[in-house]
């Protein structure tokens, strides 16, 4: 790991920590105007974070997807980028930083606790479809993290303790948060579908089979299906509101397990990078 990567990674983590703290304190101390400082800190963190990833890419000669450190770092980067882009598109998602920024900071922190050594990518991973597979996994996670953020805010607002009423009134109306969560899940679901498709093509090219019921494949199918159930419930059964928000939180646990834990828990295709 180069010195520039190390320094910029620390700087990015520090900015994300401050950003996460601002988001949390803005809720605790009912200071809505602090939110913009949270977003500013996220931007300040994104710059060194991008440099750290770029430095890593140049030094290792491959994208940030092979070691666990690269996985944590790149997931955090994509989540922050998508969050900031979502704010540009609709200011209503700025409250989702309450979830996105702490999660991104935790991912960065986890990066410190695993090996940061550069590993050589084996030839079997040298494929366009693998890049598409991991890229869309990150995009899917980022989109769904924002959706989960909106769902968590939704649940907080539903509870609305009297002393926080004034603050929660500044949140977007519940139906808008509910709808935004739905929109981000829909986008995330498209990304997850592309992830599964690209992974199947890569597996077919490498092993002559597109699906092998490997634990990671099973869990990616489970993740895809649980979000399919969510969308089905919303579109066809009329789910929404609190129930849908709780389902989002539950589904996020499954997605996190699927993306980050299966390679550790199971001995399978993705174990190689979970070091």
């Amino acid at each position, binding site marked *: 790991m180069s010195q520039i990567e190390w320094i910029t990674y620390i700087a990015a983590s520090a900015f994300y920590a401050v950003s996460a703290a601002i988001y949390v304190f803005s809720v605790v101390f009912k200071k809505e105007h602090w939110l913009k400082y949270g977003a500013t800190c996220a931007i300040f963190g994104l710059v060194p974070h991008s440099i750290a990833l770029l430095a890593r890419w140049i030094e290792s000669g491959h994208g940030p997807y092979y070691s666990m450190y690269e996985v944590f770092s790149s997931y955090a980067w994509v989540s922050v980028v998508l969050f900031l882009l979502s704010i540009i598109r609709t200011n209503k998602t700025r409250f989702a930083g309450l979830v996105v920024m702490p999660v991104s900071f935790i991912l960065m922190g986890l990066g410190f606790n695993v090996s940061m050594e550069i590993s050589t990518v084996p030839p079997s991973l*040298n494929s366009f479809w693998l890049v598409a597979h991991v890229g869309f996994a990150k995009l899917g996670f980022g989109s769904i993290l924002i959706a989960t953020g909106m769902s968590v805010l939704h649940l907080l607002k539903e509870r609305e303790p009297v002393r926080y009423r004034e603050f929660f009134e500044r949140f977007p109306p519940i139906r808008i948060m509910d*709808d935004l969560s739905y*929109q981000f899940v829909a986008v995330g679901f498209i990304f997850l579908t592309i992830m599964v*498709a690209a992974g*199947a093509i890569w597996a077919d090219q490498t092993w002559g089979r597109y699906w092998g019921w490997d634990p990671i494949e099973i869990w990616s199918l489970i993740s895809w299906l649980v979000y399919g159930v969510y969308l089905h419930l919303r579109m066809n059964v009329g789910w929404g509101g609190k129930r849908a928000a709780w389902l989002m939180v539950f589904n996020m646990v499954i997605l996190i397990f699927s993306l980050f834990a299966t390679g550790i828990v199971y001995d399978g295709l993705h174990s190689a990078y979970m070091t």
Partner: protein
Amino acid sequence: MWKNISIFFKSKQLALFLIILLILIAFIGSIVPQRHTYTPVHFESLMEYNPWLVASDNIGLTNIFSSWMFFVTVIILLFNSAFCTYGMLRLAIRRFGADPVFKGKDPILASQNRAQISTSKRSEESLSQVESTLRSKRYRTSRNKNRIYSEKNRLGVFGVAFFHLCIILVFVAVLYGGAGRMEGKMQIVEGQMLLAQEENYGYLHKPPLFKIPPQDFGIYFEKFNPNYIKSDGTLMGAASKLLIVENETVTTSGFVYSNRQISYNGIKFYQADYGFAPLLLLKNSAGDVLSGSYMPSFYDGDGGYVSQFTPTDTKWYSTATLYPSDVPQSSEFGADVPHNPKIQLTVFEGENELYNGTLVLNESVSIGNVSLGFYDLKYASVISLVSDKGTPILFAGFWLSVASLFTMYFMIPRRIWVEVLRNGNGTFVYIGGKTDRFRSSFEDEFLKIVEEIGEVVKDESD
């Protein structure tokens, strides 16, 4: 009867139940060790110490993805999807074919979003201005007297049905591909030619429903490259050059390595594994070869390449572990390059150990009145031959699903109704809007449109 079947299979609750059941089956498959992920010997050893695994095995949970429970769930889900899709398609076609006109009892009152603007302008002028505003927002409009109907993304009504059709396509591709899938593995030594006939396969999975068409080609393993480098300079590791020969003509050829296969006649050729093939010969005291051949040997995970063999006309049983090189290898992902190779050889006759020692190249050992020697070393590969006609359909289904999801979520039908009414207090523009999905983003657009209409129809005196 048909009606009841139709109602049962069209049920959205059934779809939900089946998807959740599929999730549960998948979950069980992820926590109960599955037979297909272990060798039979390894799996049996797992069962020795795990009574829960034995119990799971007895009720079929260790082969859950080949179980009747899984197949029945998938088949019912396929029927359910087909019935639902039929209903969705009918509805979508009806909506798509409907006249784009302002009709119905009071669509504005029934809309999700409504607005009212007053103006002193004449009705005709207001209607023209409203229409041009809607058109500028890419809405297609139709006017009937004092009413305007406008819509955009009409094609989006097919989104949900299109997605479900794609899911059916994926199901069908998996079933069709699975029913006709052929997969075989051949161990082949550098310089060897093997015909694609059943006896030459080390492992062969025949298609359960279809016959394999006669295969008259042969596979010639021309050479092995332990460190193959692509033309762009990328190191791809171990690669085998194959020639597919039919009627003494080379029909196709090329290197196979990680992520690259060659294909011929609907069959893809992969390099599944690679190793070495030492030539072990049994000779008599006069030096005549009694038996022997190149013995394909594959990595044992501990630096050696193992093969087991029984020389013909003997009751011997032998294990040879080849150590191809005594120098460190330069490439992390390439194959070992032979350098002073040696073989750790054990020979048994029944319970008696006849020999246990090491041979270097061109060395032999006398056992009784014969000698066993190590005379040559070549590379060996395991070539996997796969034919699955469902794969291209499956991938087409995947990408069409992605396209259909885009249609579902980015081409959402939106409709706006406008009615201009004049009464004693002036002219009023009533606006109503509806979207199929994502009300909040439509709400933003609706508010902008109302604002713009308000601007254009406002009194000039203001």
